């Protein structure tokens, strides 16, 4: 099983839409850059049909170094969560693969 990468997404734009290779590559780069920049401005991203990228602020909590067992606090942080949209959830649920990953 191979994973889909930016190179293949660009290839898809080249084949299906006839963008030239440069435009296709730039399009894919800018697509992910803009999503990342939006999230870095603490701005939620809502892509209808696909899903929402949300931001959550986590408070500091106690943690532990799993190797040494030493207690170290996990600092307060902001994290990205992805909530798949209804359409994507339904499409994925239909995947009949019997091999849990």
């Amino acid at each position, binding site marked *: *099983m*191979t*994973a*889909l*990468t*930016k190179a293949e*997404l660009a290839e*898809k*734009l080249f084949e*299906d*839409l006839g*963008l030239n290779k440069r*435009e296709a590559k*730039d*399009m*894919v780069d*800018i*697509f*992910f850059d*803009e*999503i*990342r920049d*939006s*999230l*870095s*401005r*603490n*701005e*939620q*991203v*809502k*892509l*209808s*049909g*696909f*899903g929402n*990228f949300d*931001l959550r*602020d986590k408070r500091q909590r106690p943690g532990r170094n799993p190797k040494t067992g030493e207690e170290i606090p996990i600092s*307060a*942080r*902001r*994290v*990205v*969560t*992805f909530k*798949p949209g209804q*359409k*994507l*959830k339904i*499409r*994925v*649920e*239909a*995947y009949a*693969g019997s091999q*849990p*990953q």
Partner: protein
Amino acid sequence: MTKSELIERIVSRQPQLSAKDVELAVKTLLDHMSQTLSSGDRIEIRGFGSFSLHYRAPRVGRNPKTGETVELQGKFVPHFKPGKELRDQVNDSMAV
């Protein structure tokens, strides 16, 4: 930011492409990503993150209205793991 705002922002950075082209490109990308996940494959975007499927085991659920029990089949759900660059960039924004 919504999908249409994302399209506008891309158009402003790719002025040689029409808004129509960019809209079609964004739809194509999202559709291809959905397609990939629904055929059980992963997506790996360096610096952004990866999408994969997580398995949910079959369980006995309950109809919240009637209280009746229902057998729920095992299923797959999409999962996103942010990449290091995205994690760091987002976390740094909290300090600002």
